[in-house]
């Protein structure tokens, strides 16, 4: 799966900022942020093999389960907290989001849009949970336990008193205009810049 969402995340991360990358995997993206944006980065991942690979890239990484509440990070520790394509794997996405905007001045979240027309078509016509190249796993055997749509995410931000600063979308070939116009139907992925609402 190509990860076009990461280019947007990269664009949004200010040069030289302090970044926490949640679910950093093997550290590829965090190393890119360090090399291209000169950030001071910390990664979090649950998998020991990923920790070792990220360490081999010279990164500072913390083995931790995001679902445990991220209590190790104090408020306002980071300029930006990134959660790239991991929201749908969390046990309690709403708790993680609330923590993210506490820990960071800003947070950047990207996720696959389950409201995309192909998902709707799959569910509507076949009556079964969608599977595709981007979502190749069966519903009972996938880490993706909390898929949501663009509209779902925006509604959750409202509930959590989180401000949306910026939104970007990734769409299929030739559909970027449609994706911007009707993101909930035409975006394959969405990327949000968010922060805690004032007062």
């Amino acid at each position: 799966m190509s990860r076009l969402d990461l280019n947007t995340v990269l664009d949004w991360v200010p040069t030289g900022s302090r970044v926490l990358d949640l679910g950093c995997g093997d550290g590829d993206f965090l190393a890119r942020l360090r090399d291209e944006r000169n950030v001071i980065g910390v990664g979090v991942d649950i998998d020991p093999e990923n920790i070792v690979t990220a360490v081999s890239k010279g990164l500072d990484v913390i083995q931790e389960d995001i679902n445990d509440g991220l209590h190790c990070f104090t408020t306002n520790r980071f300029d930006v907290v990134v959660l790239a394509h991991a929201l749908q794997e969390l046990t309690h996405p709403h708790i993680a989001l609330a923590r993210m905007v506490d820990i960071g001045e800003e947070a950047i979240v990207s996720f696959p849009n389950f409201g995309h027309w192909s998902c709707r078509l799959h569910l509507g016509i076949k009556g079964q949970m969608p599977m595709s190249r981007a979502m190749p796993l069966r519903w009972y055997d996938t880490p993706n336990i909390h898929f949501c749509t663009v509209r779902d995410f925006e509604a959750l931000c409202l509930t959590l008193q989180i401000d949306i600063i910026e939104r970007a979308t990734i769409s299929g070939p030739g559909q970027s205009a449609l994706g911007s116009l009707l993101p909930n139907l035409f975006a394959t992925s969405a990327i949000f810049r968010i922060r805690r609402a004032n007062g």
Partner: protein
Amino acid sequence: MAEQFPQDSVGLVMPQVARFDEPFTFENGALLPRHELVYETYGELSQARDNAVLICHALSGSHHAAGFHSPEDGRPGWWDLAIGPGKAIDTRRLFVVCSNNLGCCDGSSGPNTFNPDTDMPWGGQFPQPQVKDWVRSQKQLAEHLGISRWAAVMGGSLGGMQALQWAIDFPDWVDHCVALAAAPGLTAQNIAFNEIARHAILSDPDWSNGNYLAQGTLPARGVALARMVGHLTYMSADGMSDRFGRELREGSFSPGDNSEWVFQVESYLRHQGTRFSTQFDANTYVLMTRALDLFDLSAGDGGSLVDALSRSEADFLIASFSSDWRFPPQRSIEIRDALLAAGKRVTYANIETDNGHDGFLLPNPTYEALLKQWMLRVGPL
């Protein structure tokens, strides 16, 4: 003769002795007019003196961290797993120093050496060292060796505690700090196990009030029992089940069998205890366990681990071992969280293993890969 050692071994090593003729004042006020430290080094100190790594040993460790003492020596140093050419602590580019702590029993001034004032073994009269004392004494050794900054200070368990103490007591000396299977201080349960060990030694009739060397006795039964209890806390329940199960070494489960039963695990513990009791000094065991009890990284900062670690300027590697119940992962997480709150650079991993507290001494692919990859940031690049 060196070719008979493994290629990634530091090979034949010789302990060295450093003499200090100025008095050493302990944290508890006691004074040692002069003392010696035994140490080993591996690799070469660079011209810029920027590649020195200090290894701190744990309770029963010594200065002999890697390599062999003779061509016939079947047992390499205690951390040979990590130290050598091409290993995590790569002696092709790092200069490694490991000393026998002050008050220990492998050659450095301690209870089993002679008090120059009385010409008798120190015995129970040797001052009680603490972790902060060891750090200061290791600093004297560094200065003796012409080192004014460590590329890394590292250790496991009590050794990790020394590494952490180094990072906060002498921040401008420590570039990198590695604390494995460590804790910021002992729990009541930890102290209780140490007390059982000390009680075993002190209630041995051959203890002779600590002056057994002068009396010509040896509290071997007490030390063996202390070691059996200690050793038990280094292993995990699953690891023991895998290794020993319920297997018998002597006797059988056949009906009517009335022989002496000896389970494998009993035989193993007895062997460990007996071997240790002939090698390790009883007074040292008492002093070391007490030094552990007294260790409290946050003591000077009103109990705030964050304040204590705020003083450090090092990059940290903190690792725990999943089945360690002596200093469980949660204790390493306390250190990690304090470092994060203090805004320090830290990497943390919890190694999945059945090896228990001994995990930092034993082979494990993830642990070894982590240490090796992390150590690449240590020393001149």
